[in-house]
């Protein structure tokens, strides 16, 4: 009887979650159509990125990966890479804030800007803070009893996944700064924090290779750690690429201005 009601509640939460996913995706698509009707262009690739990003998140909560994650460490790791690294990257690349500012009436857009300029967002867009939240969360999860507790409590597991995603998103956002933001830091600072974060992620996976988390066998931990190390590297390559691309574009713009204004180059 008790078991049954527990099952019911789990079922219910995952339904609610799917509804939330649907609203996020549909909202973005509706906003894009709205923009097109206003005569503004919005790359279709961003819609695809947005869709893929939410699909990554969805697949870690419902479906085969979610079912296997409770029993196999390797699948848990796949979930971690999908929700904490790949999904945030895809969602940041879809530039949701830019879209939101494009469709909002000026009055509301200004109000939103005021909110975004406030100090909590300022703290949250500092790459150091987000890197500590991101990597620190992982360290706490894998080095304490939290990991074994997570398998027994559905709510706790959901909260951990939520933190993984939010911290991953904040980190990716603070590093790439794709959307217009009032709290953008210098390229060098962001690059250094990114390098340190990649190093910390690699270190944690090597540590797990030698010291498995509670309740995980040595062999499973080795496989999971290798996946975390190399899978993380692939996603980090994407982060590095987009960060450096921004540097390249900014310098290109400066070069254009220089060419236009410099008499010497014209002559």
């Amino acid at each position, binding site marked *: 009887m008790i078991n049954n009601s527990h099952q019911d509640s789990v079922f219910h939460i995952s339904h609610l979650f799917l509804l939330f996913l649907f609203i996020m995706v549909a909202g973005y698509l509706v906003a894009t159509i709205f923009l097109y009707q206003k005569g503004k262009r919005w790359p279709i690739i961003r819609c695809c990125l947005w869709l893929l990003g939410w699909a990554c998140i969805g697949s870690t909560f419902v479906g085969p990966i979610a079912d296997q994650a409770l029993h196999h460490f390797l699948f848990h790791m796949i979930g971690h890479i999908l929700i904490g690294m790949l999904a945030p990257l895809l969602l940041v690349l879809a530039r949701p804030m830019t879209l939101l500012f494009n469709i909002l009436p000026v009055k509301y857009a200004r109000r939103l800007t005021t909110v975004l300029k406030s100090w909590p967002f300022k703290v949250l867009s500092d790459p150091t803070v987000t890197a500590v939240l991101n990597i620190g969360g992982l360290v706490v999860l894998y080095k304490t009893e939290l990991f074994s507790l997570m398998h027994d409590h559905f709510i706790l597991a959901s909260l951990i996944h939520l933190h993984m995603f939010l911290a991953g998103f904040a980190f990716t956002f603070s590093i790439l700064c794709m959307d217009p933001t009032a709290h953008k830091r210098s390229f060098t600072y962001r*690059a250094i924090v*990114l*390098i*340190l*974060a*990649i*190093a*910390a992620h*690699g*270190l944690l996976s*090597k*540590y797990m*290779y*030698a010291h498995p988390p509670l309740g995980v066998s040595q062999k499973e931990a080795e496989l999971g750690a*290798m996946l975390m*190390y190399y899978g993380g*590297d692939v996603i*980090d*390559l994407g982060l*590095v*690429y987009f960060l*450096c*691309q921004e*540097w*390249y574009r900014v*310098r*290109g713009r400066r*070069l254009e201005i220089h060419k236009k204004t410099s008499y010497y180059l014209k002559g």
Partner: protein
Amino acid sequence: MRLYFNIVIYFLGGSNLNRNRNIWAGVFFGIGFVAFIDETVFHQLLHWHHFYDQSTTDIGLISDGLFHAFSWFATVMGLFMFADLRRKGQFSIKRWWGGSLIGSGSFQLYDGTIQHKLMKIHQIRYVDSVIVYDVVWNAIALILLILGIFLVYHSKEQEKLNRGKMTHDQ
């Protein structure tokens, strides 16, 4: 001391930023490229290096992690710097190659001496006569490094000569 300071300034700073940017683009790419070769050939294809050797010191793990992360960044950044120089028409192939060889040689030397031997992150290959591998590894590193320094120095000498010519022509 004065001489040493001058040499450092000679390589790092200088009047013309773009001259050194060519070298730096090369150094970044060189470090990244060597780390990439190390990872693909020695870790993945040959399986000579181990992912995690239990004898690794803590400082070795940290050093390896930092260099791995930096090399990943350096590959991409080096290529973007290369593209930037080409775009501006300030690319000098000799300096870039010099920088690449300096970067790859010094990283390989660091990996072969300090990381493999002092910090014991892993050995080149798990056989009895590992000393042979070590000597070959570090000799290659030294050759690359010396070749790189020679190229950079040579390109600077050449530039001085060219500069002289230009003033003479004017």
